[in-house]
């Protein structure tokens, strides 16, 4: 019984059935353990966690400079910015907006810097459904290559105050 004292000599080797199960479980764990690095090197989508410490004020300045340099228009009081392929791209999160609207080219690679001006936010790209944490004090760098043209929304999926559910931004990918 599990509530009574085991007989002396309870410390014994597992029986055949148990050995089989534990063996299978260990084998499975080893497969999955090896799969982790395998997927990382073979897979096309990874979260490497590349990040740099930065104060919100400093990040804001970099983002402002970026917007001024490549601004091509405006949509709902938000700058539309079209950076040259292969460059550094900035996106700021604050309660409760994403800034600016980004216009990217299909099949080109960008280094997207996401930073927060205030609280934690969640970068959630829809409808492709890719999600990254945005933490204040950190410049989170995502190296990304859009593979399909269209309009994408960025919704916030980390609670950031009572207006959290109104926080949505936009990325446009052109052919």
């Amino acid at each position, binding site marked *: 019984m599990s509530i009574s004292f085991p007989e002396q000599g309870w410390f014994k080797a597992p029986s055949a059935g148990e050995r089989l199960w534990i063996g299978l479980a260990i084998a499975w764990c080893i497969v999955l353990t090896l799969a982790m690095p395998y997927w990382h090197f073979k897979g096309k989508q990874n979260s490497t966690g590349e990040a740099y410490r930065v104060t919100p004020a400093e990040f804001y300045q970099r983002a402002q400079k970026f917007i001024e340099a490549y601004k091509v228009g405006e*949509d709902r009081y938000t700058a539309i910015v079209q950076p040259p392929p292969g460059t550094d791209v900035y996106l700021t999160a604050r309660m409760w907006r994403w800034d600016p609207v980004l216009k990217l080219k299909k099949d080109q690679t960008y280094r997207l810097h996401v930073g927060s001006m205030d609280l934690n936010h969640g970068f959630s790209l829809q409808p492709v459904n890719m999600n990254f944490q945005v933490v204040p004090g950190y410049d989170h760098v995502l190296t990304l290559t859009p593979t399909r043209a269209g309009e994408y929304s960025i919704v916030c999926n980390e609670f950031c105050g009572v207006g959290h559910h109104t926080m949505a*931004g936009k990325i446009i990918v052109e052919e």
Partner: protein
Amino acid sequence: MATTANGLAVLEGQVSDEEKPGFKTGNHAGQVRTCDTTGLPVCLTAQRFIRLNAVAAVVFLLVGGVAALLLALTRWPTVHLLPADWYYRVLTAHGLNMLILWIIFMEIAILYFAGTTLLNSRLASKGTAWVAFGLMVAGALAINGAVWSGKADVMMTSYVPLQAHWSFYLGIILFAVGALIAVINFLATLYIAKRDKTYAGSVPLVVFGATAAAIIAVVTLLHGAVVMIPTFLWSLGLTEAPDAAWYRLVWWGLGHQSQQINVCAMVSVWYLLGTLTVGAKPLNQAVCRGAFVLYILFINLASAHHLLVDPGVGAGWKIWNTSYAMYLAVLASMIHGFTVPASVEVAMRKKGHDKGLFGWLFAAPWKNPGFSAFFLSLVIFGFLGGITGVTLGTQQINIIAHNTLRIPGHFHTTVVGGTSLAFMGLAYYVVPLIFQKEYPAKALARLQPFVFAGGITLMAIAMSFAGSYGVPRRHWDINFTGAQFAAGFDSTAHLMMGLVGIGGTIAFTGLLIFLLLTVAAVFFGRSNAGKKMEAW
């Protein structure tokens, strides 16, 4: 050299009565009764605190349960009950009342039971138990006061620099200190039982599992202190805000490990209920105990899976911590997932239910809510919880799951369909045996685990599907009305959210039946003192 009662030396290789595993003379000094059903010794001090903690647990389950219904009805798109600010407030209250207060009060009750009754000992210290209980209740009231008055709309995770009123953090600290003191009282009970030789042999498996839970609890609560004390000082304006990424790292050292306390406690309850309901016996004690040791050793590292898409922690760290370390803890669950049902099978076959591969399972006492809650908990946790957990803990899959409803979909199959359901099953024995009161309306009680398990399973699966369409958790309006740019989800996602509402309502019904019957039993139930408890 051991001697027998009449002074003769014991022959070599022979075991004296004194050394034979089992109960010896207790240390209760009269403060004890013998259980009329099981014949086990019940320390009266421990009994009082088991009752107090269980009652507190059920009170907070009620608060969390009402919040659960409101949340389910808000996320059901056609109902969308609460306004936004109340949705976030109630969500904060739900997480804290359920995951922290209901579960931990119940676990303290389990520790007090395992340390005393199963070891034939008294509780180490009555005064300490009062202090622990007082601190926990004070903390719980402070937390609820801050949340319901709108001073702490920060979610249970309270990620800095989102700030709550200082009384919120103080409440958490008080509660955690109280819980830590209770755990130490349990460990002290283990010590005095050993010192007073109230038993001989190795402790029973349930006590071993409870001890594993207690050890993890100490480590967890220390993480809690490291993260909560600076946050508390900051909320008073005394210090700068802690670093946001550091907070997430250490908070999950608390948040994830506390889930392992829950798993250890739940598995111990599975073994306990297996014994109480069908007389199940662990097949191999060494295997079962080894699996508990794996939990203690490897679980801390697995906290990494909460930070898989975070900045500031590198790819190497993520891969390392989600591979070997996580799987060694998973291995432990795989082992229990085999040994627990196997022990039930063996017990049932011994009783003559030997037909076919699954005859033993059909013949099991499904009318006994202690058994059905235990076995449904095992199935929900093992299949749904285990599979979703291992999947979400993969670095790449986490990218498509982080902060979506897939996450609550996962943990409502572990900590709700698993742990909470197992604890409800336990209540069907705690009330008759420790409160010495019979449950009324037994037919309803027999149904309860099925209603709760069915509702939670439906809700959790619907959440997981909605999440895989990208629907965020902790989100009041998936149509983004009034947002600067259009966003939203397709009709399948909305359908799934409807099912979240329906499943949640069914689960709440199951929860309500449990609460009403338990309260009715404790306060108005027929006493069974002096008699065996009625068979379920």
